[in-house]
């Protein structure tokens, strides 16, 4: 059963970069900051590609943002996705708005599965997939993972962690939750958000990068989708958190013990 999969990819600050707040608290300093695809979304793209390799189908990637977000769409196309959609948007977004826009796109594209990251590493919201599932009235499985480790044979063989039923109508999802792992079965179409241990994403190959340049990327202005474009989670101000005072060293274990026992009195 071929699957049509929609994967969302967000352009975010590189997790390695140092984030500083502008003195007036209106945003972060972007000078010298690198951008890349949200790491969770790379895992979503990888999973979609594995599902396509196993079952056939099509992988469509979509992003909401300014012109620069096309870079992350191209990265996903270079990994192997088939085509891209850029929902062109300037200005603030929030999960209610992002999910409303993706709802419109989902209604146009009619995929069997929408894969999103569990959270974007800039806003750290962890909401968009859940809200999208509600808007669509679809099954939801968040924090998809797998039982095998990232060093296992299944991972080496690039097996998908999401398991399609024989009739192609259902999917089993292993979820990382508190205190263990849970397995759910969702009827397709469904919304799944992916966690870090679902897979190790592939790197784009050189031929992949060349091919990506010729793949289709459709642009849609968000204003044309009939969605109210006003965010409801309104950021008033940004701060830097108080710095933790640290940096003291001890010479050896006896000194460490003495400090913990007599000074801090925590053991």
């Amino acid at each position, binding site marked *: 059963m071929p699957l049509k999969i929609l994967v969302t990819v967000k352009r975010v600050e590189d*997790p390695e970069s*140092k*984030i500083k*707040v502008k003195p007036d608290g209106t945003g*972060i300093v972007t000078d010298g900051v690198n951008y890349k695809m949200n790491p969770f979304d790379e895992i979503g793209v990888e999973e979609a590609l594995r599902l396509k390799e196993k079952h056939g189908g099509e992988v469509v990637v979509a992003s909401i943002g300014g012109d620069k977000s096309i870079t992350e769409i191209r990265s996903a196309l270079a990994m192997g996705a088939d085509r891209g959609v850029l929902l062109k948007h300037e200005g603030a977004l*929030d999960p*209610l708005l992002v999910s409303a826009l993706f709802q419109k796109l989902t209604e146009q594209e009619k995929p069997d599965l929408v894969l999103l990251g569990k959270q974007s*590493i*800039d*806003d*750290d919201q*962890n*909401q968009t997939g*859940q*809200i999208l*599932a*509600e808007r669509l009235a679809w099954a*939801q*499985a*968040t*924090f998809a*993972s797998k039982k095998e*480790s*990232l*060093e296992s044979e299944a991972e080496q063989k690039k097996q998908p962690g999401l398991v399609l039923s024989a009739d192609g109508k259902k999917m089993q999802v292993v*979820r*990382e*939750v*508190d205190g263990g*792992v*849970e397995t*759910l079965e*969702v*009827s397709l179409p469904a919304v799944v958000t992916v966690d*870090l*241990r679902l897979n190790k994403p592939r790197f784009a190959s050189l031929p992949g990068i060349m091919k990506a340049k010729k793949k289709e990327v459709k642009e849609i202005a968000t204003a044309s989708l009939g969605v109210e474009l006003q*965010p*409801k*989670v309104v*950021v*008033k*101000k*940004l*701060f*830097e*958190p108080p710095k*933790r005072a*640290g*940096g*003291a*060293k*001890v010479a050896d*274990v006896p000194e*460490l*013990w003495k400090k*913990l*026992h007599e000074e*801090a009195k*925590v*053991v």
Partner: protein
Amino acid sequence: MSNVLVLAEQSHGKLKKATLAAMGAAQQLAKRTGGQVVGLVMGKGVQAAADEMASYGLTVRLADAPVLEHYLAESWTPVVAEAAKAAGATWIVAAATAFGKDLLPRAAARLGAATATEVLSLSGDGANVLLKRPMWAGNVIAEVELATPVKAFTIRPTEFAPAQKAGGGSVTAQPVAVDAGSLKTRFVEFQEVKSERPELTEARVVVAGGRGTKGDFKELEGLADDLGAAVGASRAAVDAGWVPNDWQVGQTGKVVAPELYIAAGISGAIQHVAGMKGAKVIVAINKDPEAPIFQIADYGLVGDLFKAIPELREKVKSGK
């Protein structure tokens, strides 16, 4: 009426500690908005958890039905929405656990409510309550306003004092109208990671290991047991398959705030630090003197963990 509905999470009939923090946050919020706190307990055969919640002075709505036996966002969402309406709630609060993170944004969306996640603190009064929440792995704190008539948020349990026992509570039934046949999600199984140790998020002491352990957690686990501590890990150690997933501490794992956090063989990447910088005392054991973990450690020991941990265990055992 601007009442506050707080969602309970229970296991084997007992409220989770994180729920007590969410109840504490809800009480703080109700003081600011002038409303009442209403609890919501959902599940099958969960009267005991409802009674426990009521013992904190809350009016509790109990949605007890076979269809709610296993938690599913899809089937619990309509119950939350109905309960919020019945309770006259304009705010919905839950703890930012795997359960709260999965359920609350969906349930809020059903009511057209905007949600803020992992809230650290509240400020302001009446309709102008503002919420502080972390962004960029805790490198930035944002103050946000929710601009919808009904509003929702999850709280970071380590940041709110738990509710206190009080009289005046009561339990009323919340009708459940969920058609099991229409559900598109089915619970298959839950594989619990059983442990004799305290829960990571509730432990007074956490001993955590990273890639520097090379997969050998034996001495670290021994130290944890000597101290009655929980064991944590960096993402690198979890990804390698050395330890269970739910030991991960950090931006995308658990957030802990113990009295003592011992990080051994962990470099101190911001994503890890995001989950443990609230600890009262941080000890770092790392053989690289330049490791960033030392910048936030109260007591840094430059050295080999395979030597230092057994030595520390001797000290703990002898008590001097």
